[in-house]
């Protein structure tokens, strides 16, 4: 069954408090190679049947209207994944 993966990230200019907390925790565990972390969201939309252009278009619209808030977030990826 195919899935459509939608990735949403906080806009670059928006401070990401969660990412900031994570980057602070990394060196305490010995992970000292990372200077920044930004935390986003991944959605997996299951599709019964074929992913047509119309289905993909619906996913893009859902990503822009419900899955993300354009004031604070960007949809960075909408991709079909076949299992």
């Amino acid at each position, binding site marked *: 069954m195919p899935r459509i993966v939608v990735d949403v990230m*906080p806009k670059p200019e*928006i*401070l990401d*408090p*969660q990412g900031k907390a994570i980057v602070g925790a990394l060196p305490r565990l010995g992970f000292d190679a990372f200077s920044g972390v930004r935390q986003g969201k991944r959605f997996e939309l299951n599709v019964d049947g074929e992913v047509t252009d119309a289905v993909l278009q619906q996913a893009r619209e859902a990503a822009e209207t*419900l*899955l993300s*808030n354009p*004031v604070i977030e960007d949809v960075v990826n909408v991709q079909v994944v076949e299992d």
Partner: protein
Amino acid sequence: MTDLPLIGDYATPSTELSGARVGVVTFPGTLDDRDAARAVRLAGGEAVSLWHADTELPDVDAIVIPGGFSYGDYLRAGAISRFAPLMDKIVDAANSDAKLPVLGICNGFQVLTESHLLPGSMIKNDHLKFICRDQVLRVENNSTAWTNQYESGQEITIVLKNQDGQYVADEKTLDELEGEGRVAFRYVGWNPNGSRRDIAGITNAAGNVVGLMPHPEHAVEAGYGPDHTGTDGLGFFTSVLTTLVGGTK
């Protein structure tokens, strides 16, 4: 239904508008609808309970969208509530010529930004912690439907309690809000969540839609408000009742 104050005497509210009907919306996960309804009654209005799934907006003169964690704050705070059937009706009524007064408190403010009735958005507090405190605000705009009983520049103390309270918008939007006098409230003394330009609440251009993170409905009754005496929040509710009879300051 009339609520007798537990302490203090509000038997004769300054507005004496027993006929005004103020709708209070309940979503799954709303917490403060009872307190908001009580605040409406203590101010002299009639509170009308509204359910998010209602497809018609009954005959009400104003709306309060109270705080809480509607839909568990899943996805983003207010994001799913925004698409509730009743919200479509509220958005239409707020944008109509009648300019239905709408107040969004905390999660209600988040619902109003997700609905695009107000610009910007709220993200997690900059310090990442849930915060609950008595918060001083300055009334920056006292010409809205919900603030006309305050003095311009008046400092009020009401309860702040949230996790996603950091108000953000792009610089252009912030400049517009400032330029048009649409910053309704600013945090005083300490910015509790990293909000841009200390913004605690904003209004739309028409002044009928106001949203803020702190909770005026928890500061309407002596004995239970901030410092156990504060009733600084009551002015929101007397303001809208005054607006409804065409009164001004």
